[in-house]
């Protein structure tokens, strides 16, 4: 028998960010034996860095606001490969989820009438794009993610959720039938490795922005759940779709919220020109993020960038005045001073498009159930496996996520997964136990690192991976460069498989965690690269010089990457919302 200690739960939630904590809260209330397993103390999760807000038609700024308008914007913003049933679910359930957060204590900013403050964000419209700019993003100053994450953690404390804090999930455990029946996990403090048995395993592991050299993402965003699912042989959806946020601070990569432009800030080139007026005459600086990011790069490539190297542009905020900045954007003032040495009340902030968000991920339905595709191309539920938040691809964001929709995604689908799992547990779930060899195969890579006796260094390999991704899979892409990138990654994979973990100690061994994370970065990078090379069109965030147009005939589809064969297949997009008419694909302009 395996000498691993085992822990048994009804449900194990891997990840303590917004979606994981929202799912956990639902299950804790139900009395199911649930635990949140997180590699950092939950309030250190990346949700904490979200700034501008949570977009939702709560009809506060505009009493006439309608979730259908929000749904329209979301589908259009996603360049028509968002699943319309999922977007419908998120936008219509959203107000309930946001009011719940307020009832839990989230300190939203307020309007004079006492209702939640909402600000304009990019890609928002009234009346299905016909009624001008909407203000739909609910905000707690510019610290909405912090306020949301702390509120959810606090309410989990209130409901006695079990936490395995500073534990690292290594790999999924599958039984002989291919059902997911738990995971292998390591207590970082002691180094103990355990077998976690669970009827439901929820991957709420967030994004993987650290595959790029320049990213707004936290250092912990290494795509651990994506890596685990890929190693288990499960497909990944729309992995070529990475959002580059228009306003990362030049040099540092830290995020400056779109809320800056929502509050009236705008981008300027070296001539002081508000260039977005040329690219998006109506929405200007509040066009979709993909549109704004591309426009910035065009300005830079055409020689109108700012600074000595002409490699960034400026975000101008000084005209808003110190009062608005202090009240609505206090965190931005702080970050600008710290990382750009600029006081935005006086000078513009140097910014550049920076990797921000993974639209792709583990394909799921609206209940968070992970999906694979059988040989006939039909969807099939993966028993025991769930995903929510950035790690999942429901897909509500399609090819480009709208600002403020990620926080909504977290709470709506975290909640939905929690509710569904509770119901399923009530009905009874029985899967075959994992065998000794099933467990051993999930132990393979941690054993590999522990037995490594020499080889290349982890930080150097990581830096190389990030540079390949940055150079070959950035804002603009083209065939030749991507082919080279894919080849370099294939070679890098071999080197990582032989890399060296010098420190084999047990107590709080962060080098071992970084080794395990590197495997996950590798998985995510390769899935991204192959999907990007194979999608021969430009749509949303995926923009190719060699295929500059959207191709609805061949590519109005999700991409589905299969890790065992490294093949890219397609999956149908859902065009059948339940209560509204389908939003038919149109030319996307702002």
């Amino acid at each position, binding site marked *: 028998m395996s000498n691993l200690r085992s822990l048994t739960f009804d449900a194990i939630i891997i990840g303590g960010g917004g979606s994981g904590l929202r799912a956990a809260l639902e299950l804790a209330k139900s009395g199911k034996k649930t635990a949140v397993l997180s590699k950092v103390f939950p309030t250190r*999760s990346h949700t904490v860095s979200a700034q501008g807000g949570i977009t939702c038609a709560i009809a506060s700024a505009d009493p006439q606001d309608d979730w259908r308008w929000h749904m329209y914007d979301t589908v259009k913003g996603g360049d028509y490969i968002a699943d319309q049933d999922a977007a419908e679910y998120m936008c219509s359930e959203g107000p309930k989820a*946001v009011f719940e957060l307020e009832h839990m204590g989230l300190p939203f900013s307020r309007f004079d*009438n006492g*209702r939640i403050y909402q600000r304009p964000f990019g890609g928002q419209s009234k009346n299905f794009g016909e009624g001008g700019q909407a203000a739909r993003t609910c905000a707690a100053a510019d610290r909405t993610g*912090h306020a949301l994450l702390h509120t959810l953690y606090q309410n989990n*404390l209130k409901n006695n959720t079990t936490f395995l804090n500073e534990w690292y999930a290594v790999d999924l455990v599958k039984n002989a039938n291919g059902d997911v029946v738990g995971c292998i996990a390591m207590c970082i403090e002691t180094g103990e490795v355990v077998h976690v048995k669970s009827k439901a395993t929820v991957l709420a592991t967030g994004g993987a922005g650290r595959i790029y050299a320049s990213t707004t993402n*936290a250092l912990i965003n290494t795509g651990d759940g994506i890596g685990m699912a890929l190693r288990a042989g499960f497909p990944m959806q729309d992995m070529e779709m990475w959002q580059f946020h228009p306003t990362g601070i030049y040099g540092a990569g830290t995020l400056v919220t779109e809320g800056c432009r929502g509050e009236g800030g705008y981008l300027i080139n070296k001539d002081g020109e508000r260039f977005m007026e040329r690219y998006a005459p109506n929405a200007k600086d509040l066009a979709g993020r993909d549109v704004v990011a591309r426009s910035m790069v065009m300005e830079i490539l055409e020689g109108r960038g700012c600074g000595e190297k002409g490699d960034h542009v400026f975000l101008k905020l000084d005209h808003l005045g110190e009062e608005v900045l202090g009240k609505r954007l206090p965190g931005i003032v702080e970050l600008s001073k710290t990382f750009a040495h600029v006081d935005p009340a006086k000078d513009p902030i140097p910014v550049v498009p920076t990797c921000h968000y993974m639209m792709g991920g583990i394909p799921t339905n609206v209940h968070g159930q992970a999906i694979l595709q059988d040989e006939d191309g039909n969807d099939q539920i993966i028993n025991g496996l769930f995903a929510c938040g950035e790690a999942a691809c429901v897909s509500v964001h399609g090819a480009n996520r709208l600002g403020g929709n990620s926080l909504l995604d977290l709470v709506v689908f975290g909640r939905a997964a929690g509710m569904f799992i509770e119901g399923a547990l009530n009905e009874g779930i029985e899967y075959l136990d994992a065998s000794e060899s099933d467990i051993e195969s999930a132990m393979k890579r941690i054993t590999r690192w522990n037995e490594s006796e020499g080889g290349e260094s*982890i930080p150097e390999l990581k830096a190389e991976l990030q540079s390949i991704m940055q150079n070959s899979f950035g804002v603009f892409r083209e065939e030749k460069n991507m082919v080279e990138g894919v080849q370099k990654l294939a070679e890098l994979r071999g080197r990582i498989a032989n890399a060296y973990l010098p420190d084999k100690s047990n*107590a709080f061994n962060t080098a071992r965690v970084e080794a395990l994370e590197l495997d996950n970065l590798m998985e995510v990078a390769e899935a991204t690269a192959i999907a990007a090379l194979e999608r021969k069109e430009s749509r949303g965030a995926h923009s190719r010089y060699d295929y500059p147009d959207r191709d609805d005939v061949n590519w109005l589809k999700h991409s589905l990457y299969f890790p065992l064969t490294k093949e890219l297949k397609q999956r149908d997009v859902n065009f059948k919302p339940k209560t509204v008419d389908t939003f038919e694909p149109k030319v996307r302009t702002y």
Partner: protein
Amino acid sequence: MSNLQVSVYRYNPETDSAPYMQEFQVDTKGRDLMVLDVLHLMKEQDSGLAFRRSCREGVCGSDGMNMNGKNGLACITPLSDVVKNNKLTLRPLPGLPVIRDMVVDMGIFYKQYERIQPYLQNETPAPAIERLQSPEERDKLDGLYECILCACCSTSCPSFWWNPDKFVGPAGLLQSYRFLADSRDTATRERLTDLEDPFSVFRCRGIMNCVAVCPKGLNPTRAIGKIREMLLADAT
């Protein structure tokens, strides 16, 4: 070329019988790096060096540590703010048990946070929309809710060093007042009753180290003063 001289606290429970200070030479290439960047450069030299980090922008609260004698967040502390005579000494947050190197056991800090019931309590039925709150009422939460639980304040507080099990400490009390000050919270009386003993609040001696070190510019001493006022008003 003048490398930065960094002296860092090392302790690995598996191999070291006692903690010691290790010297590193770090080539900063003349840049005014953040202390966290320097730690990463040190980790390239010795992968065994353990420290926590996550957001690297001062909002997650992972990398609170003692830098040349003062607590702060490594990721938003530029070398120019702390380095004296080209020397930097890094120690874990004071007063908490060390797990390894710069990583401390924050258990008692979190326990004091949990103890103040850090969640909104309001037993009246929730409306179909949000509970209303005026901007003026909401303003009262500014300077309170922004806490990131980095523990820089509580671990710089002599009263907390002395009675970490009985004195809630500045971070916990700041959060306690965050809920006392919230117009939507109805558990004021219970919250105050829970704090009425001689230790929980009254061990604060107004030393104000907490204010001096808070990386978010918050003022726990003022919040503690407000709780004292509420407790005294409650007692008369």
